[in-house]
């Protein structure tokens, strides 16, 4: 029957997944250029759509030896888009884009080499979360180990930056180093050279990518997402601080040492050694309580939570703190480094500050602050005069001295209105913790400590956190004695951080009031 002859020759199929501005098009063009130079047919297509600014784009290439086409007597007919399960090389310019490639089925276990940069470019949804919305990068590598024939994963963005170039160059190097394409290193490098733009940095980035890929392990290692534990020193210079350190080591379980040292560090920096001692005193009381209530068996959860949350609560963010942090020499150096200023360049910073009446009153002695807050006439006058955005040029003498003096008010902090407010709130909070432990609600007490996470930020953000914290504390009291109380409170905390308007928290608190919110099952159902 056969009068049609099918000729041999199957193209190499390559998909490049990149985001707008990452140079995916440049990379595709380089591959085309190189392939054509080496006597191959090369076709590339994409769906860039000029409007797709930051969206993800797939560039798709097919390469076929020209000799094969000659033998067949016809130019090849190449596909315009990747077919799931039929791609030889997938290149992802960002880690989650590698995940997307697998979701689309472009990666096949018996044939696809997957090259991905492990750096992250967070999506808006990840960044906009009220807490930590970042996706787990290891899930992508886990899937890659199953879905691809081989995975090469390393931070090609960092390598490109190191070389003073862009990621398309280091990706090109990684492709060369992976050996996934039948072209020698020379051919790759010649392509960069003949492009004539930023040749030297591109070649450097190429070399780094090449090296990383040629030395890449068969199976990529997991990405370390753990946070380094605080260093606990053996000895320190100052005898008073040494006393505190000794106390930590003598009286607290080792599991809490790191957090306690971090707490001491923060509070000495924030106020003084006496204030840090006060902190340790509070933590010591809670540790004793913890011990009396079987804390050891619970992994000292209460002590650990206290070490963390009390330190943060005591170092509340006030105007003095901001002025202090903004005027430090170490900060001036950090800014210079971050903006990449050279030694012969001058750097001046401008801060964007917007003090409100509350902040002004908070920085006054308690009595005066209260009076001003309640005084309609003068308070209103101050509000009108003072409450507007200020561009503070920290590098000028006038502004620096003003901020420096403000930071120096640290020594009066304990007598200021803000401190009074914060202290009262802390007292209330810690008393609640003690009460809950006393009632046998150990886990709920731990969660009550952790609820402090929601109080953060300045101005409106801080007020919002304060309000939600108060709502959570009320809920903690309601929950006392109920089964699964801690889990429920934790879920409420998560709800409080789910959206800015507090819709989820309101909804769940409403259910709690109606008695419908009993532990996980109700919520689980809702989530489902």
């Amino acid at each position, binding site marked *: 029957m056969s009068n049609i002859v099918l*000729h041999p020759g199957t193209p190499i199929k390559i998909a490049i997944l990149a985001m707008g501005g990452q140079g995916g098009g440049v990379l595709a063009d380089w591959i085309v250029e190189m392939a054509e130079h080496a006597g191959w047919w090369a076709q590339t297509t994409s769906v860039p759509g000029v409007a797709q600014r930051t969206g993800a784009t797939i560039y798709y290439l097919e390469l076929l030896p020209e000799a094969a086409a000659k033998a067949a007597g016809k130019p090849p007919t190449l596909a315009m888009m990747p077919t799931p399960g039929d791609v030889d090389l997938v290149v992802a310019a960002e880690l989650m884009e590698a995940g997307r490639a697998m979701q689309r089925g472009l990666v096949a276990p018996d044939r696809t080499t997957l090259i991905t940069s492990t750096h992250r470019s967070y999506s808006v949804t990840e960044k906009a979360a009220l807490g930590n919305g970042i996706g787990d990068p290891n899930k992508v590598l886990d899937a890659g180990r*199953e879905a691809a024939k081989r995975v090469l994963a390393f931070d090609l963005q960092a390598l490109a930056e190191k070389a003073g170039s862009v990621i398309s160059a280091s990706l090109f190097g990684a492709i060369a180093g992976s050996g996934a394409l039948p072209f020698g290193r020379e051919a790759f490098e010649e392509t960069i050279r003949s492009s004539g733009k930023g040749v030297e940095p591109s070649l450097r980035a190429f070399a780094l990518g090449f090296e990383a890929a040629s030395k890449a392990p068969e199976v990529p290692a997991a990405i370390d997402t753990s946070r380094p534990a605080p260093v606990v020193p053996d000895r320190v210079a100052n005898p008073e601080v040494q006393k505190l350190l000794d106390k930590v080591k003598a009286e607290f379980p080792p599991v809490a040492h790191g957090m306690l040292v971090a707490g001491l560090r923060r509070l000495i920096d924030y106020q003084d050694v006496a204030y840090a001692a006060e902190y340790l005193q509070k933590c010591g009381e809670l540790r004793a309580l913890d011990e009396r209530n079987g804390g050891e068996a619970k992994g000292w959860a209460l002590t650990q939570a206290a070490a963390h949350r009390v330190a943060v609560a005591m170092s509340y963010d006030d105007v003095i703190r901001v002025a202090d942090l903004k005027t430090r020499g170490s900060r001036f150096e950090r800014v210079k480094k*971050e903006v990449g200023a050279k030694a012969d360049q001058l750097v001046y910073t401008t801060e964007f500050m917007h003090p409100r009446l509350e902040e002004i009153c908070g920085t006054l002695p308690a009595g005066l602050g209260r009076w001003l807050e309640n005084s309609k006439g003068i308070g209103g006058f101050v509000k009108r005069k003072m409450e507007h955005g200020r561009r503070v040029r920290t590098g000028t003498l006038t502004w620096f001295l003003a901020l420096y003096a403000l930071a120096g008010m640290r020594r009066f902090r304990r007598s200021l209105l803000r401190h009074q407010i914060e202290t009262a709130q802390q007292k209330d909070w810690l008393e609640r913790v003690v009460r809950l432990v006393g009632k046998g609600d150990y886990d709920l007490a731990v969660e009550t400590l952790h609820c402090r996470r929601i109080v953060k930020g300045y101005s409106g953000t801080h007020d919002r956190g304060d309000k939600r914290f108060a709502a959570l504390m009320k809920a903690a009291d309601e929950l006392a004695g109920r089964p699964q109380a801690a889990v429920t409170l934790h879920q409420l905390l998560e709800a409080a951080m789910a959206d800015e308007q507090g819709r989820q928290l309101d909804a769940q608190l409403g259910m709690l009031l109606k008695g419908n919110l009993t532990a996980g099952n109700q919520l689980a159902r809702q989530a489902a």
Partner: protein
Amino acid sequence: MAERSFKKEVQQLRIPAGQEFRGEGILAITKALLQSGVGYVGGYQGSPISHLMDVLADANEILQELDVHFETSASEATAAAMLAASVMYPIRGAVTWKSTVGTNVASDALANLASGGVTGGALIIIGEDYGEGSSIMQERSHAFAMKSQMWLLDPRPNLESIVQSVEDGFELSEASNTPVMLQVRIRSCHVHGRFITKENKRPRYTLKQALENPVRDTSRIVLPPASFAHEHEKIQQRWPAAVKFIREKKLNEFFDGDFKDIGLILQGGLYNGVIRALQLLGLADSYGNSRIPMYVMNVTYPVIDEEVVQFCEGKRAVLMLEEGQPDYIEQNLHAILRKAGVATHLSGKDVLPMAGEYTTAAMRAGIEAFLKAHQPDALATHEAVAADEVAEAAVAPVPKAKPAAVPITFHPKVKALADVVPPRPAGFCVGCPERPIFAAMKLAQADLGEHHVSCDIGCHLFSILPPFNLGATTMGYGLGAASSSAFNVKTGKRSISVMGDGGFWHNGLTSGIANAVFNKNDGVIVIVDNYYSSATGGQDIPSSRADNPDRSTKNPIEAAIKGAGVKWVRTIDRTYDVARMRDTLEEALTTTTDGPKVIIAQSECMLNRQRREKPIFTKKVKAGERAVKERFGVDPDVCTGDHACIRLSGCPSLSVKDSGDPLKEDPVAHVDSGCVGCGNCGEVAEAAVLCPSFYRADIIHNPTGGDRFIAKIRSAVIGWLQRRRAARLAQYAL
């Protein structure tokens, strides 16, 4: 100034005849136009043919050498009406736009053009924005060809076929006195390929000649009774002429195959995908040789009855592959076969998806189902990616694994990716001046409550997406204000409409502004003036500030609006002033002045601005001159990780990173090196009273002696104080 320059690439348009051209689809189309002796070209930019307009703009010199007139039309309607030059005169003209949206806009002019018919070839190149990556409603341009009886070409997606169909299109148009639409899909516009060139031709008859020798033939004008005659003429003369031309010139292609009693009928544009699908079923090779006969319709309208009958006769069953819905061609084929008494079974959307893009995978599944029913042995006898020939291959085939029959998306670990792989919607660029407008709108709504917001086409449409989540509808380019026109009732809240400068000049001035004035609409209209038609790639428009030697720019929007009768106009010439923007919006929403309240929010598109300013800055620095660069940053110890700033900004360079502080588990905000120092972060933090962690760093390059002197004094005092305080802390170091 367009986003991408094709100055280098357009030199390819000068390639002498007989040489090989290698490049992108749109560039090949331009070359084909020149090879066809086109007399004038127009169009309106929009993906996927934005680059075609940019190529033409950059090729203006070459076009002028050949006496070809090119202009950027005000809208697709303008472009279509431009083809009127081919009605009375034997001048070839081509226009281009994004379809179906552009064809919608143009259809009034197109219908008139098609009714009277043309003398010179009239070609409409439509960039079909359908399927993956599309930014518009999913419809077919096919319907326009049918309703106005224009011919529709859908060539095979390789440069040779596309170039050929440009030339064929002009000839077909002239042979049948009918405008011809040439459809190119997104991927065809951007495909890199090759073809052998022909000589560029000057137009046979020029616009100059036409103007000097005017012709007027009332039988070509759409006025009764001529219009009645046109309808008959379309059927009695133009259609048969077209069919004759298409058959004689063999515009449609027949490909032989082994399984002679079945066959595939397909739109030309699907050809490469169909070949790949067959290849994956072991029924074709990489060069288009197929075991199954194919009838490739490079002309999808009109359908040539005789060719269909000829292909189907003697076949048990054929499969029609037609992308999109309704299934116009399939219905047509049923009618043709029935009328001709051909008993061949016709399959189509019964085995293929009714709607959606025809991906290779979708077509493979459809063809497989068709073969299972009508030729099951075809599936049994061949291995996937067959290489039947044993002849001495000149090259050793690259060994590789067979494609997976089923991709492993079902694996639990791949499935689990759904929890972590975030959606990546398109958003505003780094430093975009439109971002502060919508941050201000969010703040205004926080003060005055939520309002109904009508959106429009353009970059500003991204305000619908996170983190802004603003806007309820988008009804078409320039129609933002018009889509609020029903809300013309007195109540406590006013509607807010958004319109871009591109949309404003496209039609918004009349459809939105003049309409609101005339109907005494009380709503608020925000015109986003970023100096370019930015969404389509930064092309100039009448209000652009650029010096464009070929166009008249710098025509202020404000003057046009006032001319249309708007009394309440506020122009904000720096959108980054979030507080002012918010206050102006609030004033517009609350003022007692009657009639539309128009706010013109102006700041230059940052992409374009950077492209313009970066080289100047670098040059200045290199020359040793004093230059200040601004960048933003966040103090990680001041930031508490609530990310309210991000929820009001969404700038790609405003990201998050680990705080490095064991007491701070939430990542802190962080400005990466992509920052262009637009100032939005600081302005938002200030206007929304967020937090003091943002700073602007002014980096002074090549500081003057004066700069250095002041810096010395400052750092002496500041440094001394800093060291004093640091020493105190160091004393207690832990």
